């Protein structure tokens, strides 16, 4: 029997996240725990929490899980695991341990699909040097999978959303467009090549990108996931108290994602992200509508976005490309805070 996980979901991957606007409303009423050992919490809109154990060691904690983004269970497991681990890399940490989080409809799918998802997650975690030491499964429909991950980091070397300095250049390590490609694929608008490219990128660990960041003592970074390029840059701009200028024509796109948007293939998540972020964004009057909308495309297991001093940019790009991140590019820069947090240009 051929298993097609995509038959079971309306929106997969990070598109299935709750609207950032609703999330913010709720979190307002939830008190943040006070503890001097908590080095990073959601206050700076960061990717993961960081807790200091002693002067040389802090723990990075994060979790992420979502419904299928592709038909094949093994590939889904790989992508979900790469996405979950990514938050540790975005903070500059070394992922060490993880727990599986699984929801699986035992009556609707053969158990081999269950095994294949876990195997995909296990293999990807192993590639990252992560040991999966347990987990929890609910009988639930549609399936969902991800990891809760713990990483190590030196308390003095944390990379956060808040570390961007005016004058820095912004480097993106993976092209964007996974949300558009996946939505287009379900409607038969995407070639096998383009789908394969999107899946390759989603499975690609942000490990190599993070190694380059650490080599250059980068202090400001995030990974691009469900809130889209614009949503995550906005979180960065707010946390760092800078304005970020993004040149959308410089942003590398996956396959035919521009054409898909031009045909109206804009996933619902893009409108949710737009709704959340637009009040803090200046859209250039001549901004191409398709480029505007792709800035809000929800990414699953997207790349790293980090800020780097301009005089080191060429060296960094060289290192990223020779590490296999051939699409790495400078997509904008940071300035002193201006009226809006983000300026989206062509």
């Amino acid at each position, binding site marked *: 029997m051929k298993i097609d996980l995509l038959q079971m979901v309306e929106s997969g991957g990070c598109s299935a996240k709750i609207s950032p606007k609703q999330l913010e409303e709720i979190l307002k009423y939830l008190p943040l725990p006070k503890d001097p050992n908590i080095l990073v919490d959601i206050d700076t809109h960061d990717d993961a929490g960081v807790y200091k154990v002693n002067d040389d060691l802090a723990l990075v904690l994060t979790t992420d899980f979502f419904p299928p983004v592709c038909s094949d269970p093994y590939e889904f497991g790989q992508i979900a695991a790469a996405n979950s681990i990514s938050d540790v890399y975005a903070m500059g940490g070394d992922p060490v341990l993880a727990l599986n989080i699984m929801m699986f409809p035992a009556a609707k799918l053969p158990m081999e699909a269950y095994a294949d998802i876990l195997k995909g997650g296990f293999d990807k975690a192993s590639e990252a040097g992560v040991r999966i030491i347990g987990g929890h499964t609910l009988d639930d429909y549609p399936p969902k999978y991800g990891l809760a991950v713990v990483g190590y980091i030196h308390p003095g070397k944390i990379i956060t959303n808040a570390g961007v300095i005016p004058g820095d250049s912004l480097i993106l390590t993976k092209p964007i467009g996974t949300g558009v490609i996946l*939505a287009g694929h379900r*409607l038969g608008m995407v070639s096998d090549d383009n789908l394969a490219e999107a899946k390759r990128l989603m499975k690609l660990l942000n490990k190599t990108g993070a190694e380059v960041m650490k080599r250059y003592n980068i202090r400001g970074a995030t990974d691009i996931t469900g809130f889209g390029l614009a949503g995550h840059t906005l979180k960065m701009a707010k946390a760092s108290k800078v304005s970020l200028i993004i040149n959308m024509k410089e942003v590398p796109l996956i396959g035919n994602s521009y054409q898909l948007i*031009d045909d109206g293939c804009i996933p*619902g998540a893009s409108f949710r992200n737009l709704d959340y972020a637009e009040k803090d964004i200046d859209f250039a009057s001549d901004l191409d*509508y398709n480029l505007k909308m792709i800035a809000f495309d929800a990414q699953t297991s997207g790349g790293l976005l980090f800020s780097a001093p301009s005089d080191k940019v060429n060296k960094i790009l060289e290192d990223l490309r020779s590490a296999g991140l051939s699409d790495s590019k400078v997509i904008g820069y940071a300035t002193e805070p201006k009226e809006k947090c983000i300026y989206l240009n062509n």
Partner: protein
Amino acid sequence: MRIVDTKGHLCPAPLIAAKKALKETAGGESFILLTDNQTSFDNLSRFLKDNKADFQVSESESIWTLTITKTIGEVVLTNPEDYCAPSITHFEKGNYVVVISSDKMGEGDEELGHLLMANFIKALKDLDELPSKMVFYNNGVKLATKSSPVIEHLRDLEKMGVELMLCATCISHYSLESVVGAGTVSNMYTITEVMASAGNIIKP
């Protein structure tokens, strides 16, 4: 008129159908698009506005009928006033929501009721803590139209960061789609949610 039926389809399928039909329609010509999904309808409205297409909406039994007209030539998008208005920054917002269900304040003389409502909205701007949101329904939505005597005050409040939410059903009931002058059109679920999670509700 051509009818594009997207009932039963979720985003982005209705957008793709709308874009295709727009491409195939001559300037000045219209077509009808049907959807039965609130989110698809919201996203379509947003998409059509951004793509400079005119449209009228009617809703019955959870089916939205959009009559979409492709505009001719270039539309002047920008409102010069938006550029001249001084930007107002940083205002404190309180954990309360103002609900405007009428265009009058209180019972009694109609003229007095209108005057009081105008004064109330004007006074909101001077409060130390602004409302987090303002919700408009039934006759209340008329206050957010272009010719309303308080439209400038509402636009100011919006610039000060207060979110104005207009009931979509009310806008279409009074056929005000083309004259909305401030705020965002919202559905009853979101409005109910906002009211349910408000610390306090003020209803003049």
